[in-house]
């Protein structure tokens, strides 16, 4: 496959993954937590490198998963002890991120990982970093990683769809029905950490946040059904990666930045023309001619 198709394919996978997980974040009003985890995952990656001395695949996923859950746990702990929720998130993730940066700079001469790369991502290098099995290349590493995480995400969502749905919309009812709400919360945070670390290499830590929140919020404007919203936000994620990539190549700027801008543009358009919750519709309703 050609160079462009690999990049588009990677970006589309990021879009689908983030769209699926992001939907639940937007519905549960936990968008700021994605910001936190996307930063603190850096520590997980560095930690995984220090333990296993490699930067790929399973060890990275495990490291990110552990740190993601640690972040969630610490935030909840502080929140329970009376710290405001947003302040708790702010303290926890900046500290973990800072530790990650210090560790990187201590091992900088041996690790191919610099802060700028981690923040901005470099999707343009994806096609050259190929996975080889028995000496034969079977495609880009990032695509395999993203595909693997996508499989996990789809599996969890299909398997626990009812539980996720009820606990997102009405957590008190979920408790009375005997659904393990806290456990579901941690499962969701685990999915978020995996998605973040898999998307990390391509779009960078900060722009993962854009991919997580903006397409889901856009989908939220279009529909009232959870199943439709999941599909919608995945599609919007794919669409904005395609638009963003084309824009980036046209103006020769950062691909991940352009994708984030594309999600913003799609959101802005939907804000006006969405059928039920769009502004135009609301204004037309207010002043019947």
């Amino acid at each position, binding site marked *: 496959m050609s160079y462009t198709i690999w990049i588009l394919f990677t970006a589309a996978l990021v879009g689908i993954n983030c769209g699926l997980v992001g939907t639940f974040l937007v519905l549960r009003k936990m968008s700021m937590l994605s910001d936190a985890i996307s930063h603190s995952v850096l520590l997980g990656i560095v930690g995984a490198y220090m333990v296993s001395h490699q930067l790929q695949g399973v060890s990275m996923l495990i490291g990110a998963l552990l740190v993601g859950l640690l972040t969630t746990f610490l935030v909840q702990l502080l929140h329970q002890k009376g710290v405001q929720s947003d302040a708790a998130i*702010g303290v926890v993730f900046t500290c973990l991120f800072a530790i990650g940066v210090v560790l990187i*700079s201590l091992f900088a001469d041996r690790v191919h990982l610099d802060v700028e790369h981690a923040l901005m991502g470099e999707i343009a290098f994806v096609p050259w970093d190929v996975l080889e099995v028995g000496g034969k290349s079977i495609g880009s590493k990032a695509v395999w990683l993203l595909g693997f995480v996508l499989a996990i995400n789809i599996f969890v969502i299909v398997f626990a769809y009812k539980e996720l749905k009820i606990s997102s919309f009405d957590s008190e009812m979920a408790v009375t029905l005997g659904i393990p709400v806290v456990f579901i919360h941690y499962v969701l945070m685990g999915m978020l950490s995996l998605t973040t670390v898999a998307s990390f290499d391509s779009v960078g830590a900060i722009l993962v946040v854009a991919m997580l929140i903006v397409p889901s919020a856009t989908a939220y404007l279009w529909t009232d059904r959870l199943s439709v919203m999941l599909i919608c936000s995945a599609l919007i994620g794919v669409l904005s990666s395609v638009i963003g990539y084309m824009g980036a190549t046209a103006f020769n700027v950062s691909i991940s930045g352009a994708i984030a801008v594309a999600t913003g543009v799609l959101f802005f358009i939907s804000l006006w023309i969405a059928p039920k919750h769009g*502004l135009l519709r609301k204004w037309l309703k207010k002043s019947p001619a």
Partner: protein
Amino acid sequence: MAHAALPGICIAFLLYGQKSLLVFLIGAACSGYIATVCIQFIVKHTRIKEDAAIGIVLSVFFGLGIVLLTWINQHEGGNQSGINDFLFGKAASLTGSDVNVLTVTAITMITTILVFFKEFKIITFDRAFAQGIGVPVSLLNGVLMFLIVSVVVIGLQAVGVVLMSALLITPALAARYWTEKLEWMMWLAGGFGALSGVAGAYISLIAYVPTGPLVIIFATMLFICSFLFAPKRGLCSKMIRRYIQRRTLRAKQLYKRGEQA
């Protein structure tokens, strides 16, 4: 806020053509203000909640900033290292004139806060009351916003765009544990910030580690200490108090039972 300032700084750089603190400050203030307006608009006119609205606006603004930054890097060539350092922070690369600017800002900041202290206090704790007694709330809010933006833009050079928010939040949160009074909280937060700055810079000199993250780690350590050991609101003193209460209660109950028997 630190993220939203990025496109403003880049546009200011594109328009002005060179690195200048004052121009950057104006650009950052403008884009920060636009970001706040966007967030309020989304929250007011759609069913999207505030946290998602903040996430949308900040991440899209940051993406725009990155796009502009790569654009600048390609088209302005020679100046790129300056603006990169500016965004990702390097305390060691500060020059004498930068330190002068920082000092002037700190002094302006302190005098502004001292002058408007009473007004700030009222609008922070009870906005409706402030409006009722005729305090110009929106004007003062604007002043406060401008102070925050200028601190962010100036702090960017020292610790970088990502860790700036930590320096804004963590010392203040740590100070909250020691006192109930705004005056004390303010001085304490400033002191904590200064302390972690000095400690972080000193360690970074010895260990050859970037300054910004170390400063943040020190601030967080101060926060954890306050969280655990502060006299009144700290976790340890709370536990001790609860333990004493439980013991006196048990002693009372035992005494009563003894009387009844």
